[in-house]
């Protein structure tokens, strides 16, 4: 069987700053400068240089994507992972035909539907019913096909009697459900999805993931899935691609690829055994409101380290600076296994004061001993105001290893399944007759 997607040496060159020219004046200025393309508005600067391997052939150009080749077989679910700006979205935009590649080519065998955003083209004045037809048509369906799927879409979206209400009166949850339902029922041979599952509540996310799995396994369709949700990529995909610096770095089993991604994304040089310390450096993660000063992993003696005993507690300290008065912000720590499964997420929300005033602070989370399994974990930290916005977008900063005698007290280091391995009481006794 022929592969359903064939990508050969796909490359995309972007121009920095003056993309084309945004006004006639700039264009004329450029013309009269006689080839002096020295001062483009947003030229690469010292603070924001173009990585060496991405520099394009002309000044102020860079490769958004460079020589990417792969094939996908029918019915596969492919996960695409990589850091922000690595080129994942560029790849998806080219495959969705939103923009053209600079060189190389891709062959897609079958109808393609791309879902780069939930609800693209929805019109607030139109009713749910009208929007289903409009959105379906924008995504490439015929009217008759949409009509045939209509009841299924409405049922999946759980909008019921609101179907003839203008969507501007929908709750955001209903809106998202309806929008995803349309896309999920399109039945293209190839479905391209970008991060759309980041919206919607957990229950609905699960439903969407289930639907995607069903689309691929039962209907033999191919799903191309770009995500930061390592758990979803891991559980859903049979294959993963890691893109970094515009290049395809690794392909293979999702577990291996995610593990490679997470271990490679650790900032090595600044990490000294269980701590990362910026202390006011320019490259510290920061925004207008908050700057991180450092993150430390401490053993019970208060010493930073990166290997911990399974039965000893671990303290994760976040040192940060509030630069502007904030209301309702919280820190969240998510622990992932090196393979990308979520272990748990914890937040200091209940312990934070309602209003945070400028100054230096430290928030610390105490992970009790006897909880984690013997494996590698990655610490993901983010700061947000729930229901409002992200203050500092989440990122993986540190990794550590849990070793020693396991919580199940087995003395030989057998690999034990599970993202955590809590110490649990057992009782064995003679049964009474």
């Amino acid at each position, binding site marked *: 069987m022929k592969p359903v997607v064939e990508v050969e040496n796909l490359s995309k060159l972007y121009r920095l700053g003056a993309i084309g020219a945004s006004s006639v004046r700039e264009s004329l200025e450029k013309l009269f400068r006689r080839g002096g393309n020295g001062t483009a508005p947003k030229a690469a600067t010292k603070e924001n240089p173009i990585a060496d391997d991405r520099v394009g052939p002309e000044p102020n150009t860079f490769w958004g994507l460079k020589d990417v080749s792969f094939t996908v077989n029918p019915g596969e679910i492919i996960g695409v992972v990589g850091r922000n700006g690595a080129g994942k979205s560029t790849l998806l935009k080219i495959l969705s035909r*939103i923009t053209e590649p600079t060189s190389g080519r891709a062959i897609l065998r079958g109808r393609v539907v791309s879902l780069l955003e939930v609800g693209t083209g929805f019109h607030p*004045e139109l009713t749910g019913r009208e929007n289903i037809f*409009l959105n379906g048509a924008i995504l490439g369906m015929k009217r008759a096909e949409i009509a045939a799927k209509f009841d299924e879409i409405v049922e999946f979206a759980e909008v019921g009697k609101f179907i003839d209400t203008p969507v501007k009166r929908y709750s955001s949850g209903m809106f998202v459900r309806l929008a995803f339902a349309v896309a999920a029922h399109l039945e293209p041979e190839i479905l391209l999805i970008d991060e759309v599952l980041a919206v919607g509540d957990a229950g609905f996310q699960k439903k969407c993931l289930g639907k995607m799995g069903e689309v691929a396994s039962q209907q033999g369709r191919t799903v191309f899935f770009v995500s930061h949700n390592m758990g979803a990529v891991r559980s859903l995909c049979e294959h993963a691609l890691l893109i970094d610096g515009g290049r395809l770095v690794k392909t293979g089993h999702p577990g291996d690829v995610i593990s490679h991604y997470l271990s490679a994304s650790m900032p090595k040089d600044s990490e000294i055994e269980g701590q990362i310390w910026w202390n006011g450096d320019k490259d510290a993660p920061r925004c207008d409101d908050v700057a991180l000063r450092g993150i430390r992993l401490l053993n019970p003696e208060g010493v930073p380290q990166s290997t911990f005993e399974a039965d000893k507690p671990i303290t994760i300290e976040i040192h940060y600076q509030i630069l502007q008065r904030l209301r309702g912000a919280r820190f969240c720590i998510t622990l992932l296994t090196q393979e990308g499964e979520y272990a748990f997420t914890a937040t200091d929300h209940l312990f934070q004061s309602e209003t945070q005033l400028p100054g230096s602070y430290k928030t610390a989370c105490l992970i009790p001993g006897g909880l984690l399994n013997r494996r590698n974990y990655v610490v993901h930290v983010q700061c947000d105001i729930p229901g409002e916005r992200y203050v500092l977008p989440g990122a993986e900063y540190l990794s550590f290893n849990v070793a020693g005698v396991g919580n199940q007290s087995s003395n030989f280091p057998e690999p034990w399944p599970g993202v955590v391995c809590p110490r649990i009481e057992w009782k064995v006794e003679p049964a009474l007759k």
Partner: protein
Amino acid sequence: MAEITAPPTYEIVIQPSRGWLTIDWRELWEYRDLLVLLVQRDFISRYKQTLLGPLWHLLQPVMNAAVYFVIFWLIARIPTDDVPPPLFYLCSQLAWNYFAQNVTIGGATFINNAHLFGKVYFPRLIVPVSVVVANLIAVGLQLVPFILCFAYYRFFTPHGATLPLTWWLLLAPLPLFQTALLSLGVSLWMSASTAKYRDLVHLNQYLIQIWMFATPVVWPLSKIPPEWKWIALANPMAVPVEALRICLLGRGTLGATEVIVSILLTLAVLATGIVAFQKVERTVIDSV
């Protein structure tokens, strides 16, 4: 719902496009339902929710006709081919307003749809075409004051005798069709240019205003001096406006040369507009 997937009916090849015209006409046809739904969307969003929406379209030509009457008839004394001036102005506006609306909305295709175009692929040409189709509804609304005015002069004034109902009426859609093609061509050119140079949006507005005065909207072709005759030849919009008056009011002067040149110019603008549009469309999303 296990089903055997039919073998993919077509292959999409994505690569840098070369050549002038790479329009996939079959694909455009595949998306015809989208055209219908976009027209429907425009109709609903413009007319369903607002009470004043349709009323505005009735009012606009009437107000314009009143202004033209004062300035061009009472003050400037520009003759109107012996047609009652209000009727003359309402008739010209049927074609001209249709043209101006198409160009104003269609000319900003890439700017107005930047978000949509950045998230989903479909043949971009569908959007300006849908604008041209959707604006026909406004033409229909404009017909109401025109017909009322026509009926008044026909049946209640001595002018009635000079306003015969002839078989020419049936040809009235033809000038409107040419207007549609020409305005599509111009809006494709404008979308392509404003996508690259944002500040041309303002220039385009002036262009439409000036263009109106170069078109026989408030004056008849019969009254321009011979040395200005070339305007009728150089401006492809002159013929449809005059032709519509011939069809509806039985008054106007057009030679075969003017008609043929105008049609050829219209087709040329449309063809080059399509080329310009799709040249921009390929990578426009990298810049807007």
